[in-house]
């Protein structure tokens, strides 16, 4: 798992699984990386093959911690490019109402990516 922070956006990539085996470590690693200027957390789920309830719980806990960290300021958490089965888990647990979910070729607000004609 890789964690990177730029322009107030904390990005997580290379997450192969998010379940009872690594949920606690995932949450702790990210909680340590939270900063005062944090505007958003983006978690790339394109390589994530397995998610369970414990992993979903860690996402919610991280969201709560980050929101608490930011206090008065706005904050967003995005899950990007989830595999179809991971997206099914997210939807089953209703977390698509809580987090922004973006698919390949879409921006966070759901609009299409601009196409360059040059």
């Amino acid at each position: 798992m890789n964690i990177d922070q730029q322009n107030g956006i904390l990005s997580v990539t290379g997450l192969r699984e998010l379940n009872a085996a690594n949920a606690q470590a995932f949450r702790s690693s990210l909680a340590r990386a939270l900063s005062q200027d944090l505007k958003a957390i983006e978690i790339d789920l394109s390589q994530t093959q397995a998610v369970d309830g414990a992993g979903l719980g860690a996402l919610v806990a991280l969201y709560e911690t980050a929101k608490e960290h930011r206090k008065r300021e706005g904050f967003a958490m995005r899950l990007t490019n989830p595999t179809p089965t991971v997206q099914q888990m997210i939807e089953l647990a209703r977390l698509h109402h809580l987090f922004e979910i973006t698919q390949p070729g879409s921006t966070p607000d759901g609009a299409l990516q601009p196409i360059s004609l040059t």
Partner: protein
Amino acid sequence: MKALLICPDERAGVTALAESVPLASVTILGKTLVEYWLEHLAGLGAQEVLVLAVDRPDQVRAVIGDGARWGLRVIVIPDKRERTREEARARHQANDNGTWLAAPRDVILMDHLPSLPQLPLFTSYADWFAVARALMPQALTPDRIGVRELKSGVWAGLNAHVAADAKLIAPCWIGERAWIEAGTTIGPNVVLEREVFIARGAEVSHSVIGPETLVGQFTEIRNSIAWGSTLINWERDSCLKVPDSFLLCSRELQRARPAPAKTPARVHTLLPAMVRFRQYVSQLLT
């Protein structure tokens, strides 16, 4: 008069449906496919039916017995591969002196329901769902003892329990001994098979929930077929084995557990965050 039924073997488009039972024995609104066909053939005047089964013939036999229920004599014949109608006719009719139903009713491949010949069952999960949805308005037949229409387009089977504040949106079919807890929303376009349990706060729409399936508290199932712990999104053709029994599972497995398993103990001990997650989702809904 005689007739011959060919059970469908494996179908690439719906492999998950045949995990626990052969396709001929999969339930659609409380009856298996082979039961619909035997009922239909009995109505056409058949007295003897041969059933060719490649996939788990013993399970097919267990469902239909000797056919006495329909006033038929039924023989299940194990086969090595699924025959075409022409092959089956050549093998079983050519040297038979009995009287057969007139073609094409004499040999039937069970890849659709008798009342919905235009809708294929096994080409995709979306097609399976389309059949279940189309069958609802015509499924209240006199042989279904105890089924009642709770309101227009909402049918409930014998001993089904629906909490007073559950929201039912037509059309939906609630199978025998199904149990729907408070604060749930069921429908539109929902089939709950027998002994389904929908826990508090769950929402189900445009979906089929298979027999004896438990849908956990505050979950949301949409555009899906849920069969035990298997969750298939028929729109995206995606299939998931749900790892957490408090979200989705077979009630049979739930009953087999040594202790009540509303929430698995490991989740409580390893991750209190999981509990907060459920509380959070419940807050979202209230």
